[in-house]
């Protein structure tokens, strides 16, 4: 058999263009359906794991899928918000831990680095998701934040640096201003959407939204460069200079000046994660919100199951077409191999006349086909491994 492989290798190398074309065609035929299946399985298990670990989500009425995508993956914005009052309602239910979420802003994009969602929440979220700092510590004061591992890596930011929020509308002068937050730590990677987010406390998120604010003293006493004109002493007519920061920054000096207007119970949240201690608590909570028109309480595993059933149907559809394409490609490959054998008929006849048996000739041809298949499979496996590390994340980005 060694001689058969020797001759096969020499022949394949001699006809290298044809061999490479066949190998890559075969590799694609093997790689495409296999990778599709592996990637979707990985996507399915990752998305399911996150959903299973999140028993209930309370949010404004609307798309259930959007609410799950928002509260679990920080994607898509709910059209309307809920309030702290709803959080209180859930938190007052016996045996329920309620974790408020406010995810309406992102960090400012830098060249080559997209902004990450800013998740305003309470310390319970870190406990619930088993998030611990890899460096530094969790935010404790207003204006502090902690970064997910992936975002820290791609932005190059570290503990002690600052990060700016991105305003939703730069032309809305009365609306939100960018807030410069101090990074107090970077979370350990936990292979979830938390890795690509920035976490701060709820009050900081509200400051970004413009609900809370501090005051910067714009007068000549504190900093003469801040004031452009103050024509009437004692009057409110003050013109700020260019040195007045175009963003908010919460420092030790001005932290105490920050305050909130309005009733805290009416402050917005985008969702509330509810973690009942027992099945009974879960059912009670579901019952409590089942009749509400202002709220919905949903079970993420159920919603994700519905989403996955759609993905599964698409997968079957794609797989069917892929297999049809593979069958057509295999037929073409068979034709190529058949034509190739015909072209080499004289060579086979020479071997036959020299004393080679038909079985040996078959063995020579089989060795070639085997080498083509093994090479193609090796490339397909390498491609599959490459795809495995990137495709699931890519798919998650595309689908969620």
């Amino acid at each position, binding site marked *: 058999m060694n*001689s058969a492989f*020797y*001759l096969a290798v020499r022949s394949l190398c*001699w006809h290298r263009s044809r061999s490479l074309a066949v190998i890559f065609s075969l590799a694609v035929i093997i790689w495409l359906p296999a990778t599709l299946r592996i990637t979707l399985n990985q996507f399915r298990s990752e998305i399911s794991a996150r959903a299973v670990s999140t028993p209930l989500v309370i949010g404004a009425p609307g798309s259930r899928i959007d609410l799950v995508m928002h509260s679990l993956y920080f994607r898509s914005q709910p059209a309307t918000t809920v309030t702290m009052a709803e959080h209180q309602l859930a938190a007052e239910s016996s045996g329920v831990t309620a974790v408020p979420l406010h995810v309406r802003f992102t960090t400012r994009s830098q060249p080559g680095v997209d902004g990450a969602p800013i998740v305003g929440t309470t310390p319970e979220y870190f406990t619930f998701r088993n998030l611990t700092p890899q460096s530094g510590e969790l935010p404790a004061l207003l204006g502090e934040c902690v970064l997910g591992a992936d975002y820290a890596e791609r932005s190059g930011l570290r503990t002690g640096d600052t990060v700016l929020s991105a305003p939703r509308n730069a032309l809305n002068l009365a609306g939100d201003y960018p807030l410069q937050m101090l990074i107090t730590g970077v979370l350990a990677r936990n292979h979830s959407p938390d890795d690509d987010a920035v976490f701060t406390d709820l009050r900081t998120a509200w400051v970004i939204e413009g609900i809370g604010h501090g005051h910067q003293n714009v007068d000549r006493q504190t900093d003469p460069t801040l004031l452009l004109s103050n024509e009437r002493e004692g009057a409110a007519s003050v013109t700020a200079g260019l040195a007045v920061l175009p963003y908010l920054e919460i420092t030790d000096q001005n932290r105490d000046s920050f305050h909130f207007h309005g009733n805290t119970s009416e402050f917005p949240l985008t969702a509330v994660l509810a973690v009942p201690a027992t099945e009974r608590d879960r059912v009670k909570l579901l019952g409590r919100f089942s009749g509400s028109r202002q709220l919905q309480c949903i079970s993420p595993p159920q919603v994700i199951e519905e989403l996955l059933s759609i993905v599964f149907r698409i997968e079957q559809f794609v797989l069917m077409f892929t297999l049809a394409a593979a069958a057509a490609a295999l037929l073409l490959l068979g034709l190529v191999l058949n034509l190739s054998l015909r072209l080499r008929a004289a*060579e086979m*006849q020479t071997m036959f006349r*020299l004393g080679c*048996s038909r079985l040996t000739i078959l063995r020579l041809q089989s060795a070639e086909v085997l080498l083509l298949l093994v090479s193609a499979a090796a490339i397909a496996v390498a491609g599959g491994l490459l795809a495995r590390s990137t495709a699931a994340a890519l798919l998650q980005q595309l689908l969620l």
Partner: protein
Amino acid sequence: MIAIRDLRFAWTDGPFQLQIPRLDIVRGEAAVLAGPSGCGKTTLLNLICGILSPAAGLVEVAGTDIGHLADADRRLFRLRNIGLVFQDFQLIDYLDVLGNVLLPCRIQPSVRLSPALRERGLELLNQVGLGSFSQRPVTRLSQGERQRVALCRALLLNPQLLLADEPTGNLDPDNSRRMVELLLQESRRSGATLIMVTHDHSLLPMFDRTLPFLQYLARTDGTDAGTSA
């Protein structure tokens, strides 16, 4: 070396029948089969080397009744005892010069490629002046060099019988003559019996003996085979 008795062979799609009552070729003899193209000379070579089996009669090569050997034995016998040189030489393009010479060791599991055989291949190439070309692709050889490689391949396993099927078929007169000289020289050096098929009558005087091939042909329709062939 070759003893043929009462041989009969008929083509299914032609009017000719090969009939050889008696033919003996002694060891070391250089014989030539001459006749026009397509008259059946190659068929006789195929009967002698066991590629074809006779309808009747005996074909004995080196004391072995080759016509009655089992297929696998016949192939092995052919590989070990008979060297074949084909028209156009039929070299394998994807093998280098030495690879082509050693080809008989790669197509028959019972004939292993040993260091001794590799040495023998190189020695044969040296003898025909191609020692320095052993790693060269055969596609980069001249016609004369290719014929020498084909001859080395035929001689690798020290065959007792060398069959050359119109090796001068596509060569000009000068190269034809050189090819025959080479065949005669190498077969004599190795002590092999040589039978060459040709339709070039100018080459016949170079051989010990010309076989009366046309006498072996008979028409199944009763007309004279010699005038038709």
